[in-house]
């Protein structure tokens, strides 16, 4: 028995989120169909997609707020049907609203009690200070602006020492400073090994903090992968003069080639090996080509997202 327990302890921890084959219909409308993904411990996963893609429905199914018609969910190694699976989960809903007759301190006290967590009063104060509510701890939540309530929601999600934090549109009501604060908070969670599931329309935000991205479209996973996998191709743009057949051959050897006047765009392999571009430039110079400019081009997540959603992708992205 002891050895078995020991063996179990040696196993790597179960993922923060594991879901498979999630499906949800509202009447005749399919909101979510065959959605499966995993969030590893300490990983930040971005959930992207247009309005009505089913992002919030998926999040609610993970947290047991919405009953899936089919599919399975494990949170931190426990079935989502077991309330204890949410013991170490913090959640900021898209529709954030807290008891208006309580103060922020009382809201946090309530959530600490509901989570049965052992969090000291000082830690709760710190949590409120982290989201910028240090000066408002004694005011009634009913008098708060939307932005302040969202900050409180963030504190609620963070207060009970979570191992998984689910943030549904965490910056929808925040000013630019607040957005930067949220980004810093997500990065500090990541640094502490806390897994984060982030649903945001702000693609730049997702690109900055997420390790992996799942793109949902019309209830299905349209693409998913690490940022490197999704953004895939790197390109290099060169402005050249005196390119002959041999020069073009050398360019094609580096990757598929597009030419527009003096400008040549070469698609490179996704991983930067550190030698492809310098070697290409050296060889071109050796062939007598005059090199005026060499510019790296990175496809942004936004371009990639739009390409996936408009279905003008040449091939399915890695899952």
């Amino acid at each position, binding site marked *: 028995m002891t050895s078995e327990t020991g063996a179990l302890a040696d196993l790597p921890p179960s993922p923060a989120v594991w879901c498979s084959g999630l499906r949800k219909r509202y009447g005749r409308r399919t909101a979510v169909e065959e959605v499966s993904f995993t969030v590893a411990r300490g990983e930040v996963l971005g959930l992207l997609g247009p309005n009505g893609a089913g992002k919030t429905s998926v999040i609610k199914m993970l947290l047991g707020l919405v009953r899936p018609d089919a599919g399975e969910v494990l949170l931190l190694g426990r079935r989502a049907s077991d309330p204890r699976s949410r013991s170490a989960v913090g959640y900021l809903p898209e529709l954030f609203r807290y*008891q208006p007759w309580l103060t922020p301190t009382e809201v946090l006290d309530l959530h600490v009690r509901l989570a049965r967590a052992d969090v000291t009063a000082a830690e709760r104060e710190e949590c409120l200070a982290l989201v910028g509510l240090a000066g408002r701890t004694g005011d009634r939540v009913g008098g708060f602006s939307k932005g302040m309530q969202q900050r409180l929601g963030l504190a609620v999600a963070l207060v009970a020492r979570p191992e998984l934090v689910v943030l549904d549109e965490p910056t929808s009501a925040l000013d630019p400073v607040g957005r930067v604060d949220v980004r810093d908070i997500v990065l500090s969670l990541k640094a502490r090994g806390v897994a984060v599931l982030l649903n945001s329309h702000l693609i730049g935000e997702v690109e900055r903090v997420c390790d992996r991205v799942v793109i949902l479209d019309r209830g299905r996973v349209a693409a998913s992968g690490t940022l490197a996998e999704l953004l895939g191709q790197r390109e290099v743009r060169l402005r050249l003069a005196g390119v002959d057949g041999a020069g073009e051959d050398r360019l094609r050897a580096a990757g598929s080639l597009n030419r527009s006047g003096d400008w040549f765009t070469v698609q490179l392999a996704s991983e930067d090996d550190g030698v492809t571009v310098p070697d290409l430039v050296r060889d071109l110079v050796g062939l007598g080509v005059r090199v005026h400019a060499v510019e790296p081009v990175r496809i942004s997540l936004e371009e990639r997202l739009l390409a996936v959603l408009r279905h003008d992708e040449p091939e399915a992205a890695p899952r």
Partner: protein
Amino acid sequence: MIVLTVAGLTLREAFRRRVVWALLVLTVALLVLSGWGFSKLIGLDTDLGTMTSGEARLVASLLINLIMFGFSLIAAIGTAFLAGPTLAGEVESGQALAMLARPVRRSSVLLGKWLGLLTFGCGYVILAGLAQLLVVRAVVGYWPPSPTSGLALLAAETVVLLTLALLLSSVVSPMASGIISVGLFGATWVAGVVGGIGGALGNEGVERVGTVSRVILPTDGLWRGAMNAFQDPIALVQMGPGEGGFPFLSEAPLTPAYLTWAAVWIAVILGLTALSFQRRDV
């Protein structure tokens, strides 16, 4: 633990939203007014001559039922309108999202809300009712035959109604649940009165209206039990059998079978609410 936390939260809401203070002001006003009214009963000139203290006590026992009905109405409306927003309103506003995403069973949250509302409603009815009885005793010297069971039945009536309001609030909008439960409460009372008139006229069909409505929603049945506990037994003798369908007199105390039915009714409705809340998407 979760149950008590949620119950405490529900009570705190009642205090913070000034429901308690509004009720307190209303109740004190009603107590003062009724005290003044009862004091006027003694020595009152009527067509039959000046009312003696004995007659005044008899009338007071009838009036107590009328005022108690007022309290049960206040408690009913108060708890029904508190119970409505508590589930449906919190789901609608999004307040329920963050709470239900915690490691809590929905049934525990529901039970906590129910306990909080029960404490609030019963606490109000018992305190206000007791205060009224004391006022009447001080002014006209009337003390009901079984005040404890009377107040307990009044509290039970409140529990029935708030349980119904909770069930409704788990399936319809907050405002609709309040209106429907108070409407049903009124309808059952009217059905009871109609049944009483049927009884007095010896029409079994009409009498059955009251009996059936008392089984479907036990508020009126429990209320009649409470009246029987508050009223002076002499009043019944004076009014004669069937009490002429008078709505503020009750012929007989409640049977244990009916009390058991009321308890089963509450348990079944609470169970149904738990089932409906468990399956609800929030």
